[in-house]
């Protein structure tokens, strides 16, 4: 095998040799821009369409009846507007980030800390939700109805699920890009097949009595009251959660500096398409009654009727793989947020530790897995009927930190906004409007949820609806923890907000001076 000195892929001639010692040349990430298909896959897989639909469709239908597709459609608007903000924040502070570092830069460390905290809490809550769906669907995969109805059995499998997913992230096992593409293709194909078969059955008269013929009026949000819209959207922002990361993916294009990549556009169209089509088909087949009957496992329930046995199992498998994929796109990014916070001295230093062999933020990851289990089990002990309520609480949190990021973008770029019409709309007005819509949802729902009768479970905790109590509890806990950290490590909290200098986007000014997170020393 003499002189088969084939250079490894990516080390093209002319690329500087790996340097010796520290500070070895350019950062690795910029070189690791990813291809078109991978970008699309990341965008769609991060949102986990199968799981998102399984978790929300029933509840959205319960809130707005036949207008569920309209809600899915308009919920996308604020997310889209803020995503433009994500794109520009990533431009000033390249190679990804999250609301934590962006809000810290634009609006100061206190709000930034709360934004980071909200990401962490949202992650802990969604893990419990994922675990619940995973437990339920695992038993339904084997048609083990008795177990699927046993809270204990479902919780047990759900906890196991969290343990396994946490271990996978700690060890750093990752699916190859090709496997991910395959899994996603199978998921999308299955959902499409479900929609087609359901619609064919509706028109052939094979559907149950509750079925309704599809109507374009389902896409009309104006027939709903403001309360219905806000309650529906609060649930539905969740299904686009994760999509926003697409805007920060540095796609491999000839001109990466140009408008948000084609990949973002394509993944968006795929997602919107899946959501609208599946919602139409599911609703046409089962009618509102069919969706609301078993809101916790609407897809397995409908799938069994639409496909019949054993074909219905593929839909269950699609939801399970979707849930698994979304833990990969949820746990690790969140662990990276706490890692980043720890390195900025905004959280205890041990959360910034990296495992010497697996190179993952193992302390952060394990802590978050543990807290998810704690949250999941205690919630199940308190009330079995909590899935909806924790989903609504999640909606409050997502609206908060994504909305805050929208405002942060407009503030951060304030010196750029009046330099062109495009700047004004895409960097200033758009993200701020998206943020305003999300904050409106937040406030409107908080007011409605202060009356427990308006929460789906009808429970009253301390006299208010559980979702509001959950959100307020975590906000207060966050403020307390921030105060503790502030006393211990005041330097992070002394950081001043930054601003993007005018002319940065046209290349006339250097990127904003960073007193930022990445400049901090590790303790």
């Amino acid at each position: 095998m003499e002189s088969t000195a084939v250079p490894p892929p990516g080390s093209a001639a002319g690329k500087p040799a790996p340097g010796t010692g520290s500070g070895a040349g350019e950062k690795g990430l910029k070189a690791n821009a990813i291809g078109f298909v991978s970008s699309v896959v990341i965008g769609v897989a991060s949102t986990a369409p199968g799981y998102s639909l399984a978790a929300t469709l029933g509840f959205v239908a319960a809130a707005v009846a036949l207008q569920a597709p309209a809600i899915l459609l308009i919920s996308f608007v604020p997310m889209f507007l803020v995503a433009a903000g994500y794109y520009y924040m990533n431009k000033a502070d390249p190679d990804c980030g999250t609301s934590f570092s962006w809000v810290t830069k634009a609006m100061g460390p206190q709000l930034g800390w709360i934004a980071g905290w909200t990401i962490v809490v949202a992650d802990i809550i969604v893990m419990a939700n994922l675990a619940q769906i995973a437990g339920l669907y695992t038993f339904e995969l084997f048609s083990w109805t008795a177990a699927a109805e046993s809270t204990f059995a479902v919780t047990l499998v759900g906890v196991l699920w969290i343990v396994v997913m946490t271990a996978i992230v700690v060890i750093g096992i990752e699916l190859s890009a090709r496997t991910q593409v395959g899994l996603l293709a199978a998921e999308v194909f299955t959902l499409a097949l479900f929609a087609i078969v359901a619609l064919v059955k509706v028109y052939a008269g094979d559907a149950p009595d509750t079925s309704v013929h599809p109507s374009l009026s389902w896409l009309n949000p104006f027939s709903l009251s403001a309360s219905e819209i806000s309650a529906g959207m609060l649930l539905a922002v969740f299904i686009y959660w994760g999509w926003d990361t697409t805007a920060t993916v540095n796609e491999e294009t000839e001109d990466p500096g140009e408008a948000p990549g084609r990949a973002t556009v394509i993944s968006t169209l795929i997602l919107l398409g899946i959501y609208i089509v599946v919602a139409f088909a599911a609703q046409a087949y089962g009618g509102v009654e069919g969706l609301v009957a078993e809101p916790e496992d609407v897809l397995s329930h409908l799938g069994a009727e639409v496909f019949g046995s054993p074909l219905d199992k593929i839909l269950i498998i699609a939801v399970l793989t979707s849930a698994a994929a979304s833990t990969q796109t949820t746990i690790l990014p969140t662990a990276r947020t706490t890692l980043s916070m720890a390195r900025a001295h905004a959280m205890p230093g041990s959360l910034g530790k990296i495992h010497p062999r697996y190179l993952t933020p193992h302390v952060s990851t394990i802590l978050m897995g543990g807290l998810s289990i704690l949250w999941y089990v205690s919630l199940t002990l308190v009330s079995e009927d909590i899935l909806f309520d924790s989903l609504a609480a999640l909606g409050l949190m997502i609206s908060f930190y994504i909305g805050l990021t929208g405002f942060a973008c407009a503030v951060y770029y304030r010196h750029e906004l009046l330099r062109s019409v495009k700047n004004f709309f895409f960097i200033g007005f758009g993200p701020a409007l998206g943020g305003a819509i999300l904050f409106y949802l937040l406030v409107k729902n908080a007011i409605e949820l202060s009356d427990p009768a308006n929460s789906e479970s009808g429970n009253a905790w301390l006299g208010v609806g559980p979702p509001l109590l959950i959100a307020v509890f975590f906000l207060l806990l966050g403020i307390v923890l921030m105060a503790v950290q502030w006393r211990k490590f005041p330097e992070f909290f002394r950081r001043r907000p930054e601003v993007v200098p005018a002319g940065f986007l046209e290349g006339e000014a250097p990127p904003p001076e960073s007193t930022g997170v990445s400049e901090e020393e590790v303790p």
Partner: protein
Amino acid sequence: MSTIVVGYDSSNCGKQALDRAVEIAKSLGDQVVVVFGYAPPGIWGGEIAEHEEAIEELGERLTAEARERAAAQGIEAEVAMVPKRGAEALIEVAEEREARMIVVGSYGEAPLKGALLGSTPNRLLHISNRPVLVVPANG
């Protein structure tokens, strides 16, 4: 004068690998290059740049440790930090230096566990065009 490329991660087997590499280099009059690959595992998302930086700092600490250990045995080792995964980083440096061999430690895991955990020696053996020496922890 040829080069021996070694992977080091401060574990027992990493130390053994380094000691063996130094020993062989001394008898052959070779150079030793300690390689650390710092690409973050997992796909995009979150503060990935921050993750990469944290790994890079870890790598600087580990490679400094390795240099000291080699110096104690009378070898002035070089260090190369590469923004790639472990096996790929080792191979890149080995190809560039036209290295005599790549030396890594083995955790002595069962093959299935190794496959699941993405073992670097395993991967190296399959994709390296240069000789690979795998040193067990108590070797």
